[in-house]
């Protein structure tokens, strides 16, 4: 609800501004992905939430359209709105981004509104398939988090030192919404409060190195009340029947919940594009500190080669694991049944690990359009997934 109100406010503000500057041009740009996807797994459940694991071809699982309108209001002020319609949402259009930017100087631009949450290196443009050489960005890192947008204020800066280019971003914002939890098979609410995000990107000629992080205070929502405390209610009742005191139950609840804890997300990596060779690596580490959420470590490595001018073949490996072994959060729980419950909860929430190898082919048949094919084969630790494959082919365009 907050998000919708913010978007309405921004759109209204931009339109109101435009009524005073009818000369302002509105520039439209857009991007789209039209992809046929077939996913299958030994366990019968898809490795990724947006796919159906029935082996059938879907034209909606990974297809999307987006239109961006930007108006230059003069004196460095501009307003931008980006509307996106995803196949998984029945192509219902949604204003994903709406923000106003002001160019403080040629090097610094400040923006306010709703925009992409730069969780990882390519998060800000992860939906623009034309910008990458994969059939699908490695899901180990780009898992499709619900908090891909955020409302707040951001400062984008760029500097040059000789042949070196440095790009930075500092952001402050908040987010609340829902996320699908496999543990409850439901969308559960939670939020980010006081997110502070920093990213740095240094490049020269054919190489780029980058790193970034963000930290937030988690608002637990129904993730705490349903997925964590609700799911273990009977175990807590058992502990109480065994003599657990109210103090011990509080110890347990304080240990396992996410609300009020710090969420930490960090990433680093490099990109090399040297003549015919392209190499990418990104490592991400994230989780909720001192809680039942085990820290995730995910990374991918990709090697690409340009065949002639318009074709790129990319082979990549991706892996995602959760640190089940870090049980430091249990140290405050004194009752053995509650201790065992918290440990089991960690295992339940950390049930997902996978690694996969993929081959992607990109063919630029037009300066604004690329045909892409990808075959991905992997193994997931969830019993209802196990070995899986994803085959996809489609077109990414920008305009």
């Amino acid at each position, binding site marked *: 609800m907050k998000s919708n109100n913010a978007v309405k406010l921004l759109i209204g503000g931009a339109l109101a501004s435009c009524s005073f500057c009818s000369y302002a041009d509105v*520039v439209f*740009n857009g*991007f789209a992905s039209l992809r046929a996807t077939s996913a299958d797994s030994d366990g019968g459940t898809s490795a990724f939430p947006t796919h159906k694991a029935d082996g059938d071809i879907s034209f909606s699982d990974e297809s999307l359209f*987006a239109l*961006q309108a930007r108006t230059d209001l003069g004196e460095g002020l501009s307003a*931008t709105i*980006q509307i996106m319609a995803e196949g998984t949402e029945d192509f219902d259009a949604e204003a994903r981004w709406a*923000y106003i*930017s002001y160019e403080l100087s*040629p*090097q610094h*631009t400040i*923006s306010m509104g709703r*925009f*992409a949450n730069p969780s990882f290196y390519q998060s*800000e*443009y992860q939906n*623009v398939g*034309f*910008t*990458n050489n994969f059939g699908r960005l490695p899901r180990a890192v780009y898992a499709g988090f619900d908090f891909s947008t955020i409302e707040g204020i951001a400062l*984008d800066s*760029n500097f*040059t030192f000789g*042949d070196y*280019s440095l*790009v930075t971003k500092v952001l402050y914002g908040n987010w609340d919404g829902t996320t699908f939890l496999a543990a409850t098979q439901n969308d559960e609410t939670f939020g980010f409060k006081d997110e502070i995000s920093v990213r740095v990107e240094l490049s020269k000629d054919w190489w780029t190195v980058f790193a970034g992080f963000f930290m937030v205070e988690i608002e637990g929502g129904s993730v705490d009340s349903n997925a964590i405390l609700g799911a273990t209610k009977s175990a807590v009742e058992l502990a109480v029947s065994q003599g657990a005191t109210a103090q011990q139950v509080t110890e347990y609840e304080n240990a396992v919940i996410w609300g009020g804890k710090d969420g930490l997300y960090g990433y680093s990596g490099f990109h090399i594009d040297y003549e015919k060779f392209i190499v990418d690596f990104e490592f991400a580490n994230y989780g909720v500190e001192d809680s039942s959420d085990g820290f995730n470590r995910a990374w991918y490595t990709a090697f690409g080669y340009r065949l002639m*001018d*318009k074709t790129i073949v990319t082979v990549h490996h991706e892996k995602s694991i959760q640190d089940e072994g870090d049980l430091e959060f249990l140290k405050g729980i004194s009752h053995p049944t509650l201790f065992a419950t918290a440990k089991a909860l960690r295992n339940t929430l950390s049930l997902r690990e996978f690694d996969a190898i993929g081959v992607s082919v990109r063919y*630029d048949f037009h*300066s*604004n359009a*690329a045909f892409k094919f990808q075959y991905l084969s992997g193994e997931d630790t969830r019993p209802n997934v196990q070995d899986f494959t994803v085959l996809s082919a489609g077109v990414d365009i*920008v305009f």
Partner: protein
Amino acid sequence: MKAILLTTVLMLSTSALAVDVVVHPSNNAALDKGKIEQIFLGKLKTFDGSAKVIPISQVDSNPVTEEFNTKVVGRSASQLKAYWSKLLFTGKGQPPKSMANDQEVMKLVADNPNVIGYVTSGSADGNVKVLMSF
């Protein structure tokens, strides 16, 4: 006779494949190939640390654009589209405006000291200054 004809053809070919980077006659900025590349990639935003630079491109269908992209920016049209898409759809930058021909570029350059553009080698008139040739 054949030798003269061949030489002429080669000269014409060379001329057609060359590109001149042009600025306003009053612009005394010292730019090398690396700086020009940075300007056309939106990385370098000023000529001398103060005046904002406005790069102007030409449409993809013009042969001079491919020459400039290859020789100066070092990227194909698709690579440049992908590069600018990252900036455009994150609010971090706008690609250079594309003009239809050399004349349109030279008019903008002649009218604005902050503009830098490129034209087919040899087509620059007296209202602009050729900064570098590639």
